[in-house]
């Protein structure tokens, strides 16, 4: 009881300092939360990519197409379970600033491949039956107020219709959600058949294939076999794991993500250093008081515990509140760029390591002063009076 009372009076000794130390720790951990979310956003789904999926693209670049006839040929390769194909549509909804990715896909095989896209069964059936139907991610649906049954016109940029118009009409048949945090919920997916039948030119070409393999360990061998099959043809392929594909994309964003990360990490540790220093300073100021406590019979161990408890308490309250606040802000406030980052969440993994940093801060800030306080001899402490 005395221990708690002492702790209380220590913290209330300079109320303003306690409050501001708490607040700066809080800010550091809010920043940490955003750092984690930005980091994840710039990794472009490397973490959530399927380990058993490969991407087959044109060897020249992703922009160049592949023939639709490649699908059945890929499926015959040993180790391949299933395939699906995708085309980038790149259309504009009302204004170029309203960006969300649109893909033309083969609906059944796409949803079988991307099991992380959860669609209510009746919506899935409705979509399969509607040639001009589309499936849209929860985030994009919320952003533009799309509802099931809405008719959405999208201006084609690459693709024009045979009748000369560039306006493509879609009906929203379903809204998908990710089965876990981190799945991209911004995509707009529609039938390849609609695109292929209605557009001028480019018939029978797809953007890239997604391939499921039976054994992720053998991915490299399967990828090699796929590419070997199309060597020296007008459409040579390059096959990589989905993870490597996402990683090379993240690398393309390149320096920007890395620099933001470096800067924010530096900032986080700077704030920790400054608040740690303030906490240590507050103990130094009380050297003589600690001497008095020792005089009246407090053991070295109790003194150590007292000083350490103080810094731990500050770190836990400030850091805990900071983590909670950033979690709430990220969950409900969304990303600060109003929708350019497809995935903006505070991953649980980083939340856990955040608590690790909180404990570390408490320990580190309290360690030296508390050890010094423990070693302090009464005579020495009282001499400073």
């Amino acid at each position, binding site marked *: 009881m005395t221990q708690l009372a002492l702790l209380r009076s220590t913290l209330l000794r300079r109320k303003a300092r306690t409050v501001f130390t708490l607040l700066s720790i809080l800010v550091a951990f809010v920043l940490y939360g955003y750092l984690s979310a930005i980091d994840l956003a710039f990794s472009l789904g490397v973490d959530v990519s399927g380990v058993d999926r490969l991407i087959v693209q044109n060897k020249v670049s992703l*922009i160049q197409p592949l023939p639709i006839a490649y699908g059945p040929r890929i499926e015959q390769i040993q180790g391949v379970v299933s395939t699906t194909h995708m085309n980038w549509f790149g259309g504009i909804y009302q204004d170029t600033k309203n960006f969300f990715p649109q893909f033309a896909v083969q609906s059944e095989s796409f949803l079988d491949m991307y099991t992380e896209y959860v669609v209510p069964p009746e919506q899935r059936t409705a979509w399969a039956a509607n040639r001009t139907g589309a499936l849209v991610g929860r985030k994009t649906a919320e952003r533009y107020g799309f509802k099931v049954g809405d008719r959405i016109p999208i201006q084609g940029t690459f693709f024009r219709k045979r009748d000369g118009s560039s306006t493509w009409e879609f009906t929203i048949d379903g809204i998908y959600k990710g089965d876990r945090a981190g799945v991209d919920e911004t995509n707009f997916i529609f039938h390849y058949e609609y695109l292929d039948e209605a557009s001028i030119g480019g018939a029978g070409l797809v953007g890239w294939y997604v391939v499921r393999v039976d054994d992720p360990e053998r991915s490299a061998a399967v990828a090699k076999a796929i590419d070997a099959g199309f060597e020296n043809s007008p459409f040579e392929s390059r096959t990589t794991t989905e993870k*490597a594909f996402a990683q090379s994309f993240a*690398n*393309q964003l390149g320096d920007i993500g890395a*620099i933001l990360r470096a800067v924010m990490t530096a900032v986080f540790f700077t704030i920790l250093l400054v608040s740690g220093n303030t906490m240590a*300073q507050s103990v130094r100021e009380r050297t003589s008081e600690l001497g008095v406590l020792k005089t009246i019979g407090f053991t070295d161990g109790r003194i150590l515990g007292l000083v350490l408890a103080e810094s731990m308490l500050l770190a836990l309250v400030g850091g805990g509140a900071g983590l909670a606040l950033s979690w709430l802000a990220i969950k409900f406030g969304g990303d600060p*760029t109003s929708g350019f980052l497809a995935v903006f969440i505070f991953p649980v993994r980083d939340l856990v390591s955040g608590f690790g940093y909180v404990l570390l801060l408490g320990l580190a800030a309290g360690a030296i002063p508390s050890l010094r306080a423990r070693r302090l001899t009464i005579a020495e402490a009282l001499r400073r009076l």
Partner: protein
Amino acid sequence: MQELANALSRYALVTWTSVSTIPQRLGSSLAAAFGVAGVVTVLVAVLSIAEGFQAALAGTGSNKTAIVMRGGSDTEMSSILSMDDTKIIVDGPGVRRDVNGPIASAELFVVVDIPKKSTGTPANVTLRGVQPAAISIRRDMRIVAGRGFEPGKNEIIVGVGAARQFAGLAVGSRLNWGGAEWAVVGHFDSGGSVWESEAWCDASILQPLFLRGSTFQSVYLSLESADAFDELKDSLTSDPRVDVMVLRESDYFAEQSEILHLLITGLGFLVAGLMAVGAVFGAVNTMYSAVAARTREIATLRAIGFGGGPVLVAILFESSLLALAGGVVGGIGAWAGFNGYQATTLNWASFSQVTFAFRVTPGLVLAGLALALVVGLLGGLWPAIRAVRLPVATALREL
């Protein structure tokens, strides 16, 4: 007059006392200044990315060059123009001419994968098929190593930015695309603009290789004057034979930087804003302990007749001074560390890599210093008010 001088000297005296005791509180003062330096560095560094990217794109376009694409296309990549279209386009009014006819280049825009030097993973690099007038249409473009490509040959020239960031683009190297071997024969410079991130070759070589038949994607036109643009635009957009959009080159590229600019400034202000809040708390702590340490002294000053005003000003001055010192350090640090830093990123609008240099402009540094000043004033305000409000008798008793 005498009174005013007295008042001023009182303010100066108290402020000088306050500032001259900073060395006694060096540790916590440095911590506060350090915090502000961090804020300013971050703000300036992050915004210099956006500034640099924008400068690279904005510096690309000339308002005396027009770019023509198919109507409804938002970028060159999604555009397609037939040979007949391009013939009508280059004959439009206001296009500058020389002995060979209109100064124009019909171009193809494709993306090829080239490994990035820093990561070894493939990156999207623009391969542009151009016609002979292309170089003279671009501002400030010149070959700085090797030579230009010969028409009809599988030869490419590469921008200095691309050569710096991507592997295997030295003059004399050979590359393989679509079953054909290409030789890199030269490097070009264009004053830091987007072209430097690209590789160029003869359009007529690219057409069959990328199965484009006789089509092109854009036409670049040199205009007789900047004012000739409207006439050309009106004429081409009302021509029933073609369906095109006509843009000033400068507008086209400036618009491409918008998304990334919004992204970076959004993140930059978020991070710097949060940090500024943290720095205010740090400054409050520092000034609060500064005031606490000098409670006696301040009370004595007030007991012998100095008013609250000089004390308030002195404390605000001290905190602003610390913050500004931090701001200057941060600004210099950001400039030294980031100005001119060569980077590359994906330009979403063209789905290809753009190399650019970070730009720490005087405007950014001033914005950083302004933020530092705000942090300093806010950080000093509360401790200052507290120092003035504390009853003299209570303060003296704290001895």
